[in-house]
């Protein structure tokens, strides 16, 4: 079937071969397959942002935030999932770790990892958000100029697999008076929280795997409690004990650190689920616009109460709003990517996003959020994030 062409037709000078740049990696064999991969060396700056409030005296109390402005999609890779360590990341020998179930149960039990591997497992994609996420916006008098890693990095989203805690509770046999479960970790401070039995039995998971592989040390290796939608602190890492009680026991974190003082001086306790929230990742603070023209506005939205129903975007500081597209599948208690095509004409303006969840809850403006709480309060901050774009194209954090 080879039609003989004219010499002129066939032999067009392929001058490009000489003139085109052929990079050296296209002229050599590359490296062999490897057992476990790592990111490209050129991406080494894509790291979690580390926050150590008392670095000099208490370095083990340390946090790190997911660099959402460097990421796309909705899944957080395991290496970049946020961390909050109240007493540092313990180095646990999985062969010696055990999960105890005791208290108001018929049969106090303990489980090692080998036994747990035999249990039925469930899988679900869920966000985790620290109750203190976005704290700088909540309390700093002037907006901090930093990236989404510092400003909103204490939320991440992964696929969790593990055993429904219900299965283990039923094996132990919960007594009728057993209405709460005090979960405790095997870290230095033995971090403990009281969790309603209702939540434990509804969708509490003993998570053993994250994004397919065994949970990373900073996420609670070899096991953590997962309570979809509830503040990160309750999702006890390095979980070693589930103690069934008739009432909450008022652990340290539910007595002070994870309570919120309201404007009138009274406090909220047992605030568990995270509210509806969103922020734009592209563009976002610390970025510079590369000139007028087309941009896709893209960001993340979520709610502890269920699915995101709607995300609206404003490019005029809130005067008008347009509905963004949500990337399928929209899952409950999971980060949802929204996007909207946009043309920037080069003039200064303020971009912002406002999420509504399936219960109808809507993100508040910062002023409305602040009005509800004591000036020192910074937990469960879910106000709208405005980004100001200057005429020079700088993207900056602002309060409206």
């Amino acid at each position: 079937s080879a039609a003989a062409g004219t010499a002129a037709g066939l032999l067009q000078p392929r001058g490009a071969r000489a003139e085109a740049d052929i990079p050296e990696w296209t002229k050599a064999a590359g490296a062999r397959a490897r057992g476990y991969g790592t990111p490209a060396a050129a991406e080494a700056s894509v790291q979690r942002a580390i926050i150590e409030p008392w670095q000099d005296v208490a370095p083990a109390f340390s946090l790190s935030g997911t660099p959402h402005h460097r990421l796309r999609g909705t899944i957080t890779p395991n290496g970049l999932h946020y961390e909050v360590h109240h007493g540092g990341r313990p180095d646990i020998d999985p062969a010696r770790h055990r999960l105890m179930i005791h208290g108001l149960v018929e049969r106090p039990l303990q489980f090692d990892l080998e036994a747990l591997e035999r249990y039925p497992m469930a899988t679900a994609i869920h966000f985790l958000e620290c109750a203190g996420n976005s704290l700088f916006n909540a309390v700093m008098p002037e907006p901090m100029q930093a990236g989404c890693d510092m400003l909103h990095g204490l939320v991440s989203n992964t696929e969790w697999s593990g055993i429904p805690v219900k299965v283990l509770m039923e094996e132990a046999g919960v007594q009728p008076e057993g209405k709460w479960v005090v979960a405790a970790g095997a870290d230095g401070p033995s971090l403990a929280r009281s969790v309603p039995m209702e939540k434990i039995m509804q969708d509490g998971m003993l998570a053993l795997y994250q994004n397919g592989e065994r949970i990373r040390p900073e996420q609670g290796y070899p096991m953590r409690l997962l309570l979809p939608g509830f503040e990160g602190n309750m999702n006890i890492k390095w979980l070693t004990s589930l103690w069934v009680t008739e009432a909450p026991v008022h652990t340290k974190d539910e007595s002070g650190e994870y309570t919120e003082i309201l404007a009138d001086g009274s406090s909220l306790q047992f605030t568990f689920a995270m509210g509806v929230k969103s922020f734009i990742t592209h563009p976002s603070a610390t970025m510079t616009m590369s000139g007028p023209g087309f941009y896709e506005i893209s960001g993340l939205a979520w709610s502890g109460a269920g699915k995101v129903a709607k995300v609206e975007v404003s490019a005029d500081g809130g005067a008008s709003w347009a509905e963004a597209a949500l990337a399928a599948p929209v899952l409950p208690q999971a980060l949802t990517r929204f996007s909207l095509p946009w043309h920037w004409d080069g003039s200064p303006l303020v971009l912002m996003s406002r999420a509504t969840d399936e219960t109808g809850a809507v993100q508040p403006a910062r002023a409305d959020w602040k009005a509800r709480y004591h000036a020192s309060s910074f937990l469960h901050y879910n106000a709208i994030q405005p980004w100001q774009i200057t005429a020079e194209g700088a993207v900056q954090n602002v309060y409206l």
Partner: protein
Amino acid sequence: EGPGLGQPLETAEIPFYATYVKPDGTGLPEGSGTAADGEALYAAKCASCHGATGSEGPVMPPVGPNDIWAKPAGSYWPYATTLFDYIRRAMPLEAPKSLSDDETYALAAYILERNGVIDAETAMTAETLPQVKMPNHGNFLDVWARQGAKPW
């Protein structure tokens, strides 16, 4: 439904940090300590993080409130029992679970006394600690009881 592979757990196998001292005092051990007992201990083991007298910080000063921390453990928390349990399980940060029960009572007493919640002479014990009336007790709204998982 499950494989039923849980092993029996004897009471003796349950470490103290797998439970928590309850507001009514259940779980408190024998022992006692006064603020005076606690003062030197606090200076030696706690002051480096929480401040010379407990209100300076930098870390969440347990004595206050002040501009550093609005929710000081010794006056904001609803129950004094939490102080005992938390100090025993978690503090000092670099050597948690190293304190004796007497030392823990003494440190709880010191923090409470510095907050003006108890006087200097009263020893904290399994009987006295649960009876301490915390000033902020009764000033909390239980959001779970009120509206369950609905975010505030």
